[in-house]
């Protein structure tokens, strides 16, 4: 009797491992890094620091979840960072200088993001520009546009309503963390349970088959880019709220982090793979590493190098695993 129960639980564990290997490894890594750094930096495991790690995570996780859709469908979006820049600076400028009501300002970043996503989608599907080049183009155009609109100044003095998502707390927990949880569960549900999500995997793993099965590939791909854009806009809103200001450097390099977390979280750049939970756990790992390095006063520039190294390692593991699958 006992041995049967044992066997059953081993089988359950094995299937959990097969289905969620990446997530489990990441969870283990987060724990390991937390324990490791807590020996060098006594401030690591305090509740204050853990809350600040969660808050650090929120906007990257939201942007990363958006890009997860694009990556699962076999595309890439390099314009996330500059979308965040344009969405936040335009919104801040309109609400402080041009008397746009705060209610409108709340939806503005998301709308701007969706517009950028639509442009990316149309460029890749209709003009058939590779997504790398198309989104590299939008990156440059948007960065330039933001600099032309705001120049070098920092726009502050935003109304409370606009900064609420990024800087308020419910009890001890920042509101942005709840937003992150909401988007996380929403993305997980969408990817698992809706045809929108399932078609994302279909298109990513075999586009031709998807198209032959009557899935409107072009339209879906455009929507995936728009999802990424919309969530970038939401991330922008939170970031602006946290900093209580916006300038043209606000989103610089965020695309790299967003792509990194989607890939470290199990997303494959060949398409067809990736999960919302994996992405969020990858954000957690990066946030824990960054926090640990900051607390143990390592040169801040190591963070850039470590992010790059993590990407390379994660993608190499993905590539090696893929080769194993094929043979």
């Amino acid at each position, binding site marked *: 009797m006992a041995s049967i129960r044992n066997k059953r639980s081993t089988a359950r564990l094995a299937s959990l491992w097969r289905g969620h290997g990446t997530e489990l490894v990441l969870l283990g890594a987060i724990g390991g890094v937390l324990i490791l750094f807590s020996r060098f930096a006594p401030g690591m495991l305090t509740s204050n620091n853990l809350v600040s790690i969660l808050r650090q995570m929120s906007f990257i996780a939201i942007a990363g979840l958006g890009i997860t859709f694009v990556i699962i469908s076999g595309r*890439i979006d390099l314009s996330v960072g500059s979308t965040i820049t344009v969405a936040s600076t335009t919104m801040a400028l309109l609400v402080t200088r041009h008397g746009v009501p705060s209610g409108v300002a709340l939806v503005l970043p998301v709308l701007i993001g969706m517009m950028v996503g639509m442009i990316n989608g149309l*460029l890749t599907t209709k*003009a*058939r*520009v*590779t997504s*790398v*080049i*198309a989104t*590299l*183009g939008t990156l*440059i*155009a948007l*960065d*330039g*546009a933001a*600099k*032309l609109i705001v120049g070098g100044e920092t726009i502050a003095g935003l109304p409370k309503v606009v900064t609420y998502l990024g800087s308020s707390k419910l009890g001890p927990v920042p509101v942005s963390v709840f937003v992150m949880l909401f988007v996380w569960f929403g993305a997980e549900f969408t990817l698992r349970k809706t045809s929108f999500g399932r078609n994302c995997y279909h298109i990513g793993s075999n586009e031709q088959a998807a198209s032959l099965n009557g899935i409107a590939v072009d339209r879906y791909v455009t929507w995936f880019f728009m999802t990424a854009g919309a969530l970038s806009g939401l991330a922008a809103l939170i970031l602006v709220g946290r900093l209580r200001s916006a300038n043209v450097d606000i989103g610089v390099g965020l695309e*790299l982090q967003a*792509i990194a977390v989607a*890939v470290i979280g199990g997303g494959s*750049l*060949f398409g067809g793979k990736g999960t919302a939970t994996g992405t969020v756990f990858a954000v957690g790992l990066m946030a824990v590493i960054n926090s640990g390095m900051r607390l143990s006063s390592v*040169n801040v*520039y*190591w*963070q*850039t*190098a*470590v*992010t*790059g*190294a993590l*990407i*390379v390692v994660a*993608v*190499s593991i*993905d*590539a*090696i695993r*893929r*080769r194993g699958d094929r043979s």
Partner: protein
Amino acid sequence: MTPRRSPKDDKRATRLAGSLLRLLVRRGQLIWLMVAVAVVAMSLISPHFLTVENLFTNVLRQSAVVGIVSVGMTLVIATRGFDLSVGSNIALSSSIMALLLTESGATVIEGIAVALAIGAAIGATNGVLVAKIRVPPFIATLGMLSIARGLALVFAGTTPVDLLPQSLLDLGRGKVGFLPLPVLFLAGTWLVAAYLVKHTRFGRYALAIGSNEEGARLSGVKVDSYRIAHYVVLGVLTAAAGVVLTGRLGAAQATMAVGLEFQAIAAVVVGGTSLFGGEAKLAGSVGGAILVGVLRNGLLLRSVDTNWINIIIGAVMVASVAFDGLRRIRAGRLS
């Protein structure tokens, strides 16, 4: 009364222009027409543009660094590869070279050797990741972009390292006759690369791998080793371009050459080399680098905002890629 042109003459002229255009497109030399148009346009909008002084000492000298990188980039793109790490490569190799020269008392030769070795190491890492581990080139080199830039910042901080020896500065600022030294370096790199592509296995195999990797492998080409070699050559050329750039600027800095990868890729793509691999239009890439240089310089002289210049160059690049896609669709090679 002057004789009026008949509609027939007009038609003939249009047809002539049309066939000239087709000829240029077919031979992949459209880029020189674009350069010519850009030069005319720039001299119309800015009176200071069309002087010998400006064209040689500024435009060509500035284009040379991007040009040298884009010659190497052409080889890698010909194999259906990609390299986003070239800007960071320059930052890391040049700032370490500058630190060795100013703080450790290394000679110029030693400094340059170390810079080139760093470039080779970055290229080799990219190559192994792409060829052996089969990471998509785009993401492998994106990771490397971040690693190399981070290391450059760790070693050199954000302050420029200057007070470099005169012989190093001469590499970027010197002249032979009326030709700036960097332009001669570009010409040399171009000629050697053109020879490699036409007459050696190293170059021929790049095209073979890019147009049909499996076919090349089945024909006995050591695809992986050649692929790595192509990335190493690009890494070394990039580091060399960095040395020239450091000489021209008089200092190296961990934040230098940000976005250079974009300019180099734009030059290659605008020059007519397809991102789908199998082609290496070296003359086009050099022309592309000059086109980018002409636009940048001319618009700057007209004091157009740098951001607008980037937007314009980005638009030219995206248009070229779209043009390439359409050309392939029409040629039936892309469904």
